C-alpha cells in the first residue's frame, strides 16, 4: 500500500475544537481534499466534502443557520448530522430526493482537536491515543512545506521524535522536562498545518504568556522549515 493510500485510512487533527465557532463554516484541506467544518447550535460538528452535490460550489462559503448549512449558489439546505438535502428553493413544494446529500467525512473530537478521516469506513476508535491526563491546545501554524519535510526537519533539527507508533504525524520533544506535542495535518503536497499541545493544564494567569511562547517557538521552526523548502 502506498503512503497516500495508507494516509487516507488515518485520522488527522484539522482544527482546535474551540475554533469551530457557532454560525461559522471552517474551510480546511486534508491530503488534497477540501472539507467544510461547521458546528450546529446543539454543538454537533459536521465535516463534509467542501462541495455542494448540485453544482460543486464550496460549502465553506455557505451559511450556517445553526441547524442546516445553506449553499450560497441556489440556497439548498443540508441538515446537520445527516447531510440530507431538506429544501430546494427552486421547487419549494417538493421534497428533495433522498439521494441528494453531502459527502460526510469521519469526524471526532479528541484532545481539544477536531479529527477527520477521509476513508470509506472511519472508525473513531482508531483516533491515535496519546497518554495525556490533561492538555492545553496551542495556536495552529500553517506551513508552506510538505509534511515529510516538516516532520524530517522537526526530528533532525528541532529535537522531536515520534510520540506514537503511528509514524511521523505526531511528534513530541525528546529529553526531560515539560513535553511539547506537535500534530501534523498534511493539507496537500505543498502545505502542512502544525497543531500543538502541551500535556498539562495551564493556570489562567499564565495562559497568554504560555500560548505566546509556544507560538513563537513553533513560528521560528516554521520559518526555518519554509526557508529549507523554498
Amino acid at each position, binding site marked *: 500500500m502506498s503512503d497516500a493510500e495508507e494516509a487516507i485510512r488515518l485520522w488527522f487533527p484539522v*482544527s482546535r475544537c474551540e*475554533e469551530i*465557532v*457557532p*454560525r*461559522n463554516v*471552517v*474551510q*480546511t*484541506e486534508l491530503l488534497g481534499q477540501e472539507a467544510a467544518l461547521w458546528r450546529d*447550535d446543539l454543538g454537533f460538528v459536521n465535516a463534509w466534502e467542501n462541495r455542494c452535490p448540485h453544482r460543486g460550489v464550496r460549502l465553506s*462559503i455557505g*451559511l*450556517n*443557520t*445553526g441547524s442546516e448549512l*445553506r449553499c*450560497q449558489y441556489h440556497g439548498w439546505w443540508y441538515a446537520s448530522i445527516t447531510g440530507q438535502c431538506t429544501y430546494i428553493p427552486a421547487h419549494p413544494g417538493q421534497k428533495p430526493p433522498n439521494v441528494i446529500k453531502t459527502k460526510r467525512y469521519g469526524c471526532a473530537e479528541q484532545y481539544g482537536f477536531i479529527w477527520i478521516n477521509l476513508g470509506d469506513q472511519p472508525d473513531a476508535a482508531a483516533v491515535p491515543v496519546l497518554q495525556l491526563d490533561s492538555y492545553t491546545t496551542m*495556536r*495552529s501554524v*500553517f506551513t508552506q512545506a510538505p509534511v515529510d519535510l516538516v516532520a524530517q526537519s522537526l526530528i533532525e533539527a528541532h529535537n522531536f521524535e515520534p510520540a506514537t507508533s503511528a509514524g511521523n504525524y505526531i511528534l513530541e520533544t525528546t529529553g526531560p522536562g515539560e513535553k511539547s506535542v506537535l500534530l501534523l495535518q498534511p493539507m496537500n503536497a505543498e*502545505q502542512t*498545518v502544525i497543531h500543538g499541545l502541551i500535556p498539562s493544564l495551564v493556570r489562567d494567569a499564565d*495562559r*497568554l504568556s504560555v*500560548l*505566546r511562547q509556544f*507560538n513563537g517557538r513553533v*513560528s521560528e521552526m516554521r520559518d526555518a522549515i519554509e526557508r529549507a523548502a523554498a
Partner: protein
Amino acid sequence: MIKLYDFELSGNCYKLRLLMGILGVPFERIAIDFYPGREHKSPWFLKINPLGQLPVIDDHGFILRDAQAILVYLACAYDPSGLWYPRDDARMLGRIAMWLGCADSITATASAARLHDSLFYDFDIDKCRAGAHALFRVLDEHLWFAEQEGNDWLCSSKHPTIADIACFPYVMLSEEGGVSRLPYPAVRRWTDRVKRIPGFMVMPGIFGASPAASE
C-alpha cells in the same frame, strides 16, 4: 448630502459606503466609469483628484480623497458615539493609524493581485500574492491572540473601529486575486464578525453572513 465619487467594484469605495451605511449617514453616489472607461483619469476628474484615484467625497464643498483619510473624517464628523474613532484615547488612535497603514499595504498587494487577475493590470502577480500572504499571516496571528484576550476587533477594543472597516474589503476580495484565505482561520472568524455588525451591507464579491445565534 455627501457626494461619493464611486465605483461599484472598488473595495476602497465600498468601505466608505459600508461605514456610512452603518452610521446611517445618507449619501449620493456619483458613479465613475473606472473600468473600462478610465474616467478617474479624465481631465474633469483630475481637477477633483489630481492623483486620479477613487474614492473622493464632497461634503458640502469639503473635498477629501484617500479612503483611509475619509474614514477618519466620517467617523469624527458623523459618529456621535465616538466609538469608531475614539478621539481621546492616545493608544487607540495609535493602533488605528497602524492598521490604516496596513489597509494600504493590503490594497498594494491583495487588491493589486485582484486587478491583475480580473482586470488585466500589468503587475508582478507572484510578488503581489506573496505580499498579501505575508500580511495575512501577521493579521491572523494578531487576531488569534486578540480572541484569546477576549477582543473581537483589530484594535483590542470591545467595539469595532474604522481600522476593521479599512482592512475588511480587500481581505474579503483576496480570492479574486488568487490569494486563498484557507490558511487564516482567525481572519475568517473576524470577517464573519464584521459581517454581523448592524447595518452591514455587501458588494459584488462579498456575501453576507447568516444571522448570529440568539444569545
